[in-house]
């Protein structure tokens, strides 16, 4: 950990997490481009698989935010896909998950924080959106603000802590037991990666849905 890789590019410091992120982005973009080159009304197996994934994400989003599902689908789906691959990248020897980097998880948490406000203001208007911080009583405004900050911080720390601890635990086990127990550790890594990606995406979805529906009577 301490030997973190950095490349200085002027004022910017390109870390290994960023390079890995670029690789993940490239892979995702290539897969997306390949899978959507020949979309037909009657799908083949690849198109069917891709549509099934997107439809599953769409249904999950619509279950939480039925009125604004299509609006937040790209953000939540991108978050899920990126986190899924980013969490699983650590399984590849020589690579580390970008999500074990606090800077990355904080960036994602901040994106969720601003996205929630963005979609909330976009749907409710600035005045209506800010009004919910004063309801049911203006006294609760500090608690609302603390809640916003704490949940964003929790979002970042949770993912960072889980992935980093997972990789550290896996490294320690591999150091102690050698290669005698790699498969259970790998299985644990996969499950943990999936669960953490799901939790982060679902929390982001709940935050966005809550922001967009906070002033609606039937929310």
């Amino acid at each position, binding site marked *: 950990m301490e030997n973190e890789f950095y490349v200085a590019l002027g004022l910017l410091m390109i870390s290994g997490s960023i390079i890995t992120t670029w690789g993940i982005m490239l892979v995702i973009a290539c897969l997306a481009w390949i899978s959507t080159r020949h979309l037909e009304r009657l799908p083949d197996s690849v198109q069917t698989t891709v549509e099934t994934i997107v439809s599953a994400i769409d249904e999950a989003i619509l279950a939480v935010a039925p009125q604004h599902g299509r609006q937040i*689908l790209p953000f939540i789906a991108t978050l899920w896909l990126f986190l899924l691959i980013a969490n699983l990248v650590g399984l590849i020897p020589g690579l580390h998950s970008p999500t074990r980097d606090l800077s990355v998880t904080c960036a994602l948490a901040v994106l969720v924080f601003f996205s929630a406000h963005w979609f909330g203001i976009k749907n409710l208007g600035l005045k209506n959106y800010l009004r919910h911080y004063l309801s049911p009583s203006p006294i609760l405004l500090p608690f609302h603000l603390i809640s916003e900050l704490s949940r964003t911080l929790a979002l970042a720390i949770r993912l960072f802590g889980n992935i980093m601890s997972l990789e550290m635990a896996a490294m320690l086990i591999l150091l102690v037991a050698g290669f005698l127990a790699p498969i259970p550790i790998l299985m644990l890594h996969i499950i943990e990666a999936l669960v953490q990606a799901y939790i982060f995406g679902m929390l982001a979805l709940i935050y966005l849905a809550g922001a967009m529906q906070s002033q609606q009577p039937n929310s």
Partner: protein
Amino acid sequence: MDFNVSTFFLEIFNFLILLWVLQRLFYKPLLEVIAKRKRFIDQTVSEANTTRQQAEALRDQYQNRQQQWEQEKQAALDSFNQQIEAERTLQLNKLVTDLEDEKQKLQVTVSRQQEEFKMLAEKQALKNGARFAALLLQQTASEELEAKLTSLLIDKLSTLPDECSSSLHLLKTEKSIPIKISSAYPLPNELREQLELKLNALIDGTINIQYFQAEELIAGVRIDIGSWELNANLQHELSAFAELADEIV
């Protein structure tokens, strides 16, 4: 555990780029094709529903038409049966009437045939009777019978009807009145004289009497006075008998 500001901002930037790329390359076309398929499915379902509704409407229409046709068929059948029944009754009555007429005609024909047969039988019986009587009279005929018949004629000449008497009186304008007296047997003189006396008494004029023998008379005499004829013989009686049979027929 270090927090790097460059990584933080680059990660934000990277994620936004990834979000933009996926939105352009992945979500948008994929959601469009899904929506397109959904529209196609909805359209197909809508068309199928429309087709189903049309089929149901056609089926209802067909069922209604079938029921209507069944009713029309039943009505036509009832009407046809009534017509057949009426026609059958009419034809039956006509047949009964024709049979009754034929029966009456047959009865008339049979009755006429029976009548004809009866008349023929009677005629034949009379003919047979006449033939029998002729044979019998031929066997029993004799001069005595002829004499009796002649005497009877002489007696009858005295009581002739007025018409006959007036006819005989008309003959007195004739100069000579020829009288033919035919008999089956030669008449005895006595009878000849009595006859001549009677004739002279009846005919007030000159009479010329000639005697002939005619065996076909069987017995008796026949007197021809001009166109007037007096018969008192069996042949004439038999002829009258036969004529009576003809008259009966």
